[in-house]
């Protein structure tokens, strides 16, 4: 999140689109209630009427997978009705920037498309620079090649008629939402957007969020209290694990993963973003300091300047390799791996096209399954349709401690790193994950020493000293993440003060690229300092009155509660909304008051800097030339969709997606065998694949079995009654479920045809309870967003049929 949970209460309009906040983030709903009590409007846009919709002031339906059409219509509405925040758009975004003449858009394709590679040449979309390398601008926004005019042109096509024909949302509902949300374009109004997997799990997932980012910058809603684009993260510490480099393309602190073509540290550092504009902070220019400090943290004394801080020891991706989930399991399915650690996950149920994953697990020699409870991954070999005698995979189960049985930090959606204490010992042989990892690596080292092996340097020399009196010590890990001074520094270049060897660095500002500092993750630097463990703080003071609680836990970066907060003030540093003053420039004392500012520089009007310090240009990107599928979000149909022709263009699906073909990867579009739009989701009572919740008798009592929600109209069409057992089927697989026939789902009129929408949760699995049903991911396709490769689990085509007595007898 750019903002944080408590900040919802500062919003005038809350748009919940792409998630189901009341059901899936139930505790956060208190802040929505708090906003509503002060008169805020709460809008829910979703294919289904859910527990969230029941509490919404405005509920509007749309067909799964049509969010860009919906939001594109909103962009047009905002521009047509002059609802945008002109000051903000001109000063804090790239609206005035001139795009080079090679940029173009025609019939669903941006310029630079290569159909054989299904990819774009992004250089065609570059911003024009002047002689000194600074972006060219037309601050009047009149130039026909300026971003603002290109934006207007692009979204002029998203008329209410077309949007309605695509989304199925009635025009009056569209206008109701556009009007309400558009009202937040005034400096004293704030609108926030809350999303989750309902936006990300699409072949246009990134562009869904981009579309909203454009709206938020047009309305001046970024960097302000009550604003932001806020991802409601689905696991308590998924933010923390992403920050620590969980994904293949990043190493800790969002540094890019080294690739083969960057053989030396110098090559790697050449990819550091640069800016010629002296008023752009371009914070990423500091990347070499963070990489050097990370390498020092990994390899300790072995890492010296002369050996590139052992950069060569880091594993490298191939030049264009995409090692994302879908590709990994595709490779596993093809037999590329011998071993696999399934750690705190259940891919046999959580992965898209889970049937393929279950087959892939059988291609392994060994698998280690680390979990609190047994799951369908560890027992895949005796699952439905499996013959254990024919499966060679040897499975090792390691029991781990649950969250209350270990100490450590979790980082929530609002980037708050909160320390947790242990309140009970884990049962039996179960150990905390950190301890398992720590001991495991020591065993690996010992085995390499005994049995030898190739390329042992990074294994023997990894700094692995996170123990006290022979026991794993989580505080040592937390301190390593913060970083240390590794030598006495008599006069630090930043503040000219002296720092002692072995002391913790006060923040990443003090990290150096010469090997004198270490840091496990620069964005967490300042979390555990000589002043103590900041994440363990629990003070309830709130000086701004905005709910920032600066001494409750700690927020990355540097305890900044709302990022890009310099965009909340005018050029003189005065709050644009004095009623919700997030930052204020104290001209007399030359310092900022309020939240921790995005850097100490004075306001823009007094030789200060641009507000979006993480962007090379220093401003928010209305035009985003860095994405694989285009600089503006464009509506494409999901890979599997109910209409032959995309109403917006002749490109039916996202032109940049990778198509998986053959084997168990099958797809069906406009196929009468699979006529209904289907989506998957979660309910309050279960968590993810249900590994933790399906074993809890009170929760399984409340949501005992897989269900499929269908409209009364579809039920009539298919002769299904409420509570009937049904088969839900796609070209990839089928599951048995109980039909919930409900008026909370309704058919859509899409391009003049009646289209039915169905949906089912993905919490169940064959292992437990025995009559609970199996994973809804047996239905979902192997297809991902071109930028992130997140699978499209939220929009695909399915069939639903009643199980007759005869059929049931067979089953």
């Amino acid at each position, binding site marked *: 999140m750019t903002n944080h949970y408590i900040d919802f209460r500062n919003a005038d309009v809350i748009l919940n689109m792409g998630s189901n906040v009341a059901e899936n983030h139930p505790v956060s*709903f208190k802040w929505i209630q708090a906003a509503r009590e002060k008169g805020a409007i709460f809008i829910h846009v979703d294919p289904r009427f859910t527990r969230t919709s*029941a509490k919404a002031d405005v509920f509007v339906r749309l067909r799964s997978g049509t969010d860009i059409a919906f939001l594109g219509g909103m962009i047009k509405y905002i521009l047509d009705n002059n609802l945008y925040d002109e000051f903000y758009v001109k000063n804090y975004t790239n609206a005035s920037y001139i795009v080079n003449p090679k940029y173009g858009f025609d019939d669903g394709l941006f310029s630079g498309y290569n159909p054989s590679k299904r990819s774009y040449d992004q250089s065609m979309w570059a911003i024009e620079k002047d002689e000194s390398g600074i972006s060219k601008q037309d601050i009047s926004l009149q130039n026909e090649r300026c971003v603002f005019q290109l934006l207007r042109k692009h979204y002029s096509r998203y008329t209410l008629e077309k949007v309605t024909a695509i989304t199925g949302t009635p025009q009056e509902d569209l206008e109701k939402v556009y009007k309400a949300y558009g009202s937040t374009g005034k400096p004293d109004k704030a609108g926030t957007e809350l999303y989750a997997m309902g936006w990300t799990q699409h072949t246009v997932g990134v562009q869904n969020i981009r579309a909203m980012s454009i709206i938020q910058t047009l309305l001046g809603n970024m960097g302000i209290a009550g604003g932001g684009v806020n991802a409601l993260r689905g696991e308590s510490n998924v933010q923390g694990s992403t920050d620590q480099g969980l994904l293949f393309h990043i190493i800790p602190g969002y540094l890019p993963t080294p690739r083969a073509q960057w053989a030396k540290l110098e090559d790697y550092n050449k990819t550091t973003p640069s800016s010629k504009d002296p008023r752009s902070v371009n914070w990423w220019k500091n990347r070499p300091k963070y990489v050097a400090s990370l390498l020092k943290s990994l390899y300790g004394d072995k890492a010296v300047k002369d050996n590139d801080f052992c950069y060569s020891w880091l594993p490298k991706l191939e030049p264009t390799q995409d090692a994302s989930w879908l590709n990994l399991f595709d490779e596993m399915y093809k037999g590329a791996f011998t071993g696999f650690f399934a750690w705190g996950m259940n891919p046999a149920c959580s992965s898209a096209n889970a049937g393929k994953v279950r087959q892939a697990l059988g291609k392994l020699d060994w698998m280690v399954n680390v979990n609190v409870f047994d799951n369908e991954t560890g027992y895949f070999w005796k699952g439905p349709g499996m013959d254990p005698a024919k499966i060679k995979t040897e499975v090792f189960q390691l029991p781990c401690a649950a969250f209350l049985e270990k100490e450590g930090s979790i980082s929530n959606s609002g980037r708050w790193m909160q320390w947790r204490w242990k309140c009970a010992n884990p049962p039996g042989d179960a150990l905390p994950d950190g301890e398992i990892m720590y001991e495991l690596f020591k065993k690996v080292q010992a085995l390499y020493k005994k049995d030898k092996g190739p390329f042992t340097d990074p294994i023997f020399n990894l700094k692995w000293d996170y123990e006290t009196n022979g026991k794993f010590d989580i505080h040592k890990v937390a301190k390593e993440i913060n970083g240390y001074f590794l030598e006495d520094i008599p006069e630090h270049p930043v503040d000219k003060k002296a720092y002692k060897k072995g002391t913790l660095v006060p923040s990443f500002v003090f990290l150096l690229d010469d090997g004198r500092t270490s840091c496990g993750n620069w964005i967490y630097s300042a979390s555990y300092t000589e002043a103590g463990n900041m994440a363990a703080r629990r003070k309830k003071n709130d000086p701004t009155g905005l709910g920032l609680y600066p001494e409750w836990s700690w927020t990355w970066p540097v305890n900044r509660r709302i990022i890009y907060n310099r965009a909340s003030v005018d050029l003189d540093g005065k709050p644009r909304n004095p009623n919700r003053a997030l930052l204020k420039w104290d001209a007399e004392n030359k310092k900022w008051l309020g939240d921790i500012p995005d850097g100490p520089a004075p306001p823009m009007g007094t030789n200060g800097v641009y507000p979006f310090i993480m962007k090379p240009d220093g401003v928010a990107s209305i035009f985003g030339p860095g994405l694989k599928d285009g600089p503006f979000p464009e509506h494409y149909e999901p890979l599997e969709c109910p209409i032959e022709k995309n109403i917006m263009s002749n490109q039916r699906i996202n032109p940049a997606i990778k198509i998986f073909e053959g084997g168990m990867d099958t797809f069906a579009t406009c196929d009468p065998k699979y006529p209904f739009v289907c989506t998957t989701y979660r309910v309050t009572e279960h968590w993810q694949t249900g590994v933790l919740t399906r074993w809890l008798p009170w929760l399984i009592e*409340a949501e005992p079995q897989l269900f499929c929600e269908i409209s009364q109209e579809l039920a009539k069409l298919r002769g299904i009654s409420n509570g009937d057992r049904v088969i839900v089927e796609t070209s990839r697989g089928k599951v048995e479920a109980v039909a919930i026939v409900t008026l909370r789902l309704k058919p859509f009129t899409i391009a003049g045809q009646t289209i039915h929408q169905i949906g089912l949760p993905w919490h169940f699995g064959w292992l437990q309870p025995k009559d609970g049903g199996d994973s809804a991911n047996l239905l979902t396709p192997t297809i991902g967003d071109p930028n992130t490769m997140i699978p499209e689990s939220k929009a695909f085509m399915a069939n639903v049929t009643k199980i007759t007595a005869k059929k049931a007898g067979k089953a």
Partner: protein
Amino acid sequence: MADKSFFIDTIKCTACRGCQIACKQWNMNPGTKTVQRGSHQNPEDLSFATFKLVRFSEFEDNGKPKWYFFPDQCRHCLEPPCFYTAQSLGVKAIARDDETGAVIYNPKVKVKEADAKAIKESCPWDIPRWDKKTGGMAKCTMCIDRIKEGLLPACVKTCPTGTMNFGDRDKMLDMAQKRLSEVKKMYPKAQLLNAESIRTIFLVIDDPQKYHKFAKASAPQGITRSAAIKKLIKPLVNLSPLAG
């Protein structure tokens, strides 16, 4: 310790069912075997093992879907018909806590099926439950073991949205009245259900019947002990036209 009450603001309820689960956890009630019946309301009803149940009610209003949530539980009546009925039948399973006003069942006391039926039917809110296996009766305890130690009832403690509130009766009545007057403008049909005669005060925004058949008792308010006993002599079910 003063007279206590709950205030349940259904406007804020998102049916997360934290209260339902917390109640089971604190009271060590088992999860019962359920199946998906075509509804998210599960278990289907209150039982000897379920003292708190979030009821789901969906319907269409002017072509728009509505979904009401009703976290049902014992009302802990000021003049509890179940208590008087039990007394009149010589059943010793039901007591009242003079301090808090909590109506407490001892589930270990065996109650004959016919007596249990009479007790159940005397309740206009259809709360008391009898267990065929043990012969005991059970329902919400007001978490008397928690509140005597200065803790909130488990359902209130766990509620994330502010739906469930608990405290001294006068404070809860004030809170309920204040909230009612705040929301009346937006929801003209808003009302408190039987606030004068019970200790579990629900705020709803629509016809109570749309939430749950037994959401509101339409019997005369303030059932007195003598009236209750008098009614007992007549057919018990007539206490409320809703009962039975």
